[in-house]
């Protein structure tokens, strides 16, 4: 078995994954990836997943080794924000051609690394493997090693070619790459008992910044966010944190678990979506830090902040409640934990008529049932046509989903809100939830819907079209 196949098997065997643990030995061997159906598949590849997970590291060069498609069709399209370097938004690719395929692309890759160092001098380069060089046997691990030695800089191979599996697998393979090559390679200037890691948060639309001020206020330091608004050195010294929070479902569970094993950093799975979830997460962070030796008064201060922020958020949502009461939401989401958004929407008085559970664990589904009642409409795999019908027949008032399915809603002339990675609004923490409610309200009550659904004049019956009009207008004019 190749080393990549080994890594994939290992990732499939994730002991901290509840969904995985519920399976039989035989099922587990098959891996957590459903076999993709040709002609009926949607979603990104493992390379896409790896890039999503690591591209938010802002000060490194992300170099894609492959033909133009992998980077040329996708660069600078993700919504992760940076407070400093913009280098992560520069598209670097070897753009391999026919000659490279015949003679191998390793030389071009090595030269590319050199050029990037000469021109941009980043603290590190992440090199992404893709399908074609993987097929022709380019050993990017060896090239990276040689380049690192030659140039005295970390050159990190991310071995996650698209065809090994879906996006989610790529998230984890990216995690393996930083576990193997980055984490634990540098030391922070100083540490405090209040140092935490946030794992699996990508700072989409600047969401991390909706929570960070609260942590700052509590004196809790984000030693490393993996990977939103991250810097290379912060990831490299993340092993010195006292505790960790794992966000975004299972995307980087392997990173959290292995850091617990290797560096004894306890972690919990939390979410910054929803008021109660945010409060729970803050409490959990404080609890873990206190367990690791932070003064117990941290919890009291945390409760004060929570009480204040919750009150503010409720006050912010209050005016929308009567406007949103009873409105029905269809929630189609992959990455974001469904139940955490469900709870948040219910807080605003909205009614959930369906939610996708494609990537949810059994535990998640139980939680959804608890929140939505036994008749919760959980959708495992809904075809676009079914979603369209549901909206067209007005069984839902608004759809919340990712960008690709927006037109299902818009073509049904029904409101839609983007809650996926290309979104422009940030919905995290207390302020984020008020923002989400405000956006839903804006979408639902926009006067455009009524106009869009208005029949064209020629669609009414001819008799109606000429109703109430002056009986003999032309002749009246003629008489004047």
């Amino acid at each position, binding site marked *: 078995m190749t080393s990549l196949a080994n890594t994939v098997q290992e990732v499939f065997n994730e002991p901290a994954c509840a969904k995985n643990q519920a399976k039989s030995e035989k099922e587990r061997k098959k891996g957590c990836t459903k076999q993709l159906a040709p*002609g009926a*598949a949607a*979603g990104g590849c493992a390379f896409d997943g790896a890039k999503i997970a690591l591209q938010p590291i802002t000060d490194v060069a992300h170099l894609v080794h492959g*033909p133009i498609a992998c*980077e*040329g069709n996708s660069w600078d399209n993700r919504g992760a924000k940076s407070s400093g370097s913009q280098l992560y938004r520069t598209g670097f690719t070897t753009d391999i051609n026919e000659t490279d395929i015949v003679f191998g692309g390793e030389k071009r890759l090595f030269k590319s690394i050199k*050029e990037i160092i000469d021109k941009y001098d980043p603290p590190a380069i992440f090199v992404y493997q893709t399908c074609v060089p993987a097929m022709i046997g380019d050993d990017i691990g060896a090239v990276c090693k040689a380049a690192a030695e030659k140039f005295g800089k970390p050159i990190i191979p991310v071995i996650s070619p698209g065809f090994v599996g879906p996006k989610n697998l790529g998230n984890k393979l990216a995690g393996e790459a930083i576990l193997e090559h980055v984490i634990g390679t540098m030391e922070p200037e100083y540490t405090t008992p209040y140092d935490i890691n946030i794992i699996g948060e990508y700072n989409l639309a600047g969401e991390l910044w909706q929570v960070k001020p609260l942590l700052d206020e509590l004196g809790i330091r984000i030693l490393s966010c993996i990977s939103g608004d991250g810097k290379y050195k912060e990831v490299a010294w993340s092993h010195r944190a006292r505790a960790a929070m794992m966000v975004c479902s299972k995307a980087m569970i392997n990173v959290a678990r292995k850091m617990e094993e290797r560096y004894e950093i306890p972690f919990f799975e939390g979410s910054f979506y929803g008021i109660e979830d945010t409060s729970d997460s803050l409490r959990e962070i404080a609890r873990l830090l206190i367990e690791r030796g932070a003064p117990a008064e941290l919890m009291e201060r945390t409760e004060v902040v929570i009480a204040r922020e919750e009150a503010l958020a409720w006050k912010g949502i209050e005016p929308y409640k009567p406007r949103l009461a009873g409105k029905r939401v269809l929630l189609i989401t992959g990455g974001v934990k469904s139940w955490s958004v469900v709870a948040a929407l219910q807080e605003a008085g909205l009614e959930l008529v369906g939610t996708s559970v494609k990537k949810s664990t059994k535990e998640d589904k139980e939680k959804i049932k608890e929140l939505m009642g036994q008749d919760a409409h959980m959708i495992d795999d809904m075809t676009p046509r079914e979603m369209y019908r549901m909206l067209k027949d007005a069984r839902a008032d608004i759809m919340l989903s990712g960008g690709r399915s927006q*037109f299902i809603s818009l073509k*049904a002339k029904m409101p839609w809100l983007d809650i996926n990675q290309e979104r422009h609004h940030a919905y995290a923490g207390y302020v984020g939830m008020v923002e989400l409610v405000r956006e839903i309200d804006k979408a639902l009550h926009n006067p455009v819907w009524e106009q869009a659904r208005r029949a064209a004049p020629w669609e009414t019956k001819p008799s109606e079209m000429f109703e109430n009009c002056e009986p003999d207008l032309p002749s009246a004019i003629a008489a004047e």
Partner: protein
Amino acid sequence: MRGAAMATVLKPKKACTVNPLKMSQPMGGAMAMMGVANCMPVLHGSQGCTSFGLVLLVRHFREAIPLQTTAMSEVATVLGGFDNVEQAVLNIVKRAKPAIIGICSTGVTETKGDDVEGFIQLIRTRHPELSDVEIVYVSTPDFKDAFQDGWGKTGAKLIHDLTPERPAGAPRDPDRINVLVGCHLTPGDIDELRNMIEDFGLSPVFLPDLSGSLDGHIPDDFTPTTLGGTSLNEIATLGNAAVTLAIGEQMRLAAETLEKKTGTPFVLLDRMTGLAPNDDLMTFLARTSRREVPAKYRKQRGQLVDAMLDGHFFFGGKRIAIGAEPDLLWNMAGWMTDLGAVIGAAVTTTESPLLEKLPIETVLIGDLEDLEGAAKDCDLLVTHSHGRQAAERLHIPFFRAGVPMFDRLGAGHETSIGYRASRNLIFEIGNLFIASAHEPDPGSWRTEAIESGIKAHAARHETSNETAGMEAL
């Protein structure tokens, strides 16, 4: 165009592409398939190949995009993709009921060397029930050529596979004309051109025709395949037309293929914006239809000439940096130099006979890093939306042209063909110049003119230095 000197076409020596201008060939192929009615385009590759392309086109058109994948896994890639192609075809027929499935290859399946034409034959023998579904395959490896090549090849392959040969001397419909359009025309351009042609009493068939499928209308029901587009019957009867009009050098292959199969003669227009190219278009339509040019176009021509006179003050001497595929580059460079602008930098994606005719010393097949470097002394940046970072760093106005245009509304309705659209473009870009003009101040009284002279000299010098460091194609 006035530039008489031949431009040298260069390829950079550097190994690493930085900030790609180019998009991959199969994406161009798939987008062309989207201009065929009731079609499901498929990329034969890993699911990521489709997913990236899909997201890109969704963001450009702000429309649902029909595009499927054969979802090749690592194992399937090594063993060969027959099973995946077969399953994809069966699944698509079951779920979407298309009239045609258009398959484009990718880097993965071309590296393996899948014989997809052979696969299709085998699928035909194994599944006679699929006889009413057309399957067209185009070879479009990612590691060769670019977006517009994929588009052009697909146009030609559709004709090759679906338009039957025609006996010599069979009667032609004198009012019918075929219009083979390049990917630098938007759905809005096709609508505009259709109106013009119909105003001459002719009935056009467009191939590929995105004006029905990606023009942003609201259908009555949800369809998983393309909506609108060229019908199979229209493709099958392309040979009955009196003549073919091809727009863009990239459509030459398709026009020649049609001529070879059916004897239909063609006229190729390589430009669509500006006075002379549209005079040519009007002349062509008047001759084909044997009708006078309608009054409204005479009026529009007058307005264009007036706009050119008003606009030339702002275009004259301006240095323009353009990053675009060859046909789009040729068109943009052409109409702007017609107004006295100078092409200060030209970067493109793939080879084309047009490149050496451009009015500039060197044209680079390169990326946006090259364009940004060469645009330092330019007054305007013209490229697709990915130029936004460069424009910000250069502090010069930025005009978005080409695919993708993901950070503006209405990409599908931008028009540049005809007198009217030419007039509007002059206003739009002229206004960018006006908005970025600097107010004179007491300190700048003598420097403006002199400095721009020095700048132009330095730029020429720098270009020739750079030329020394690059290898000519």
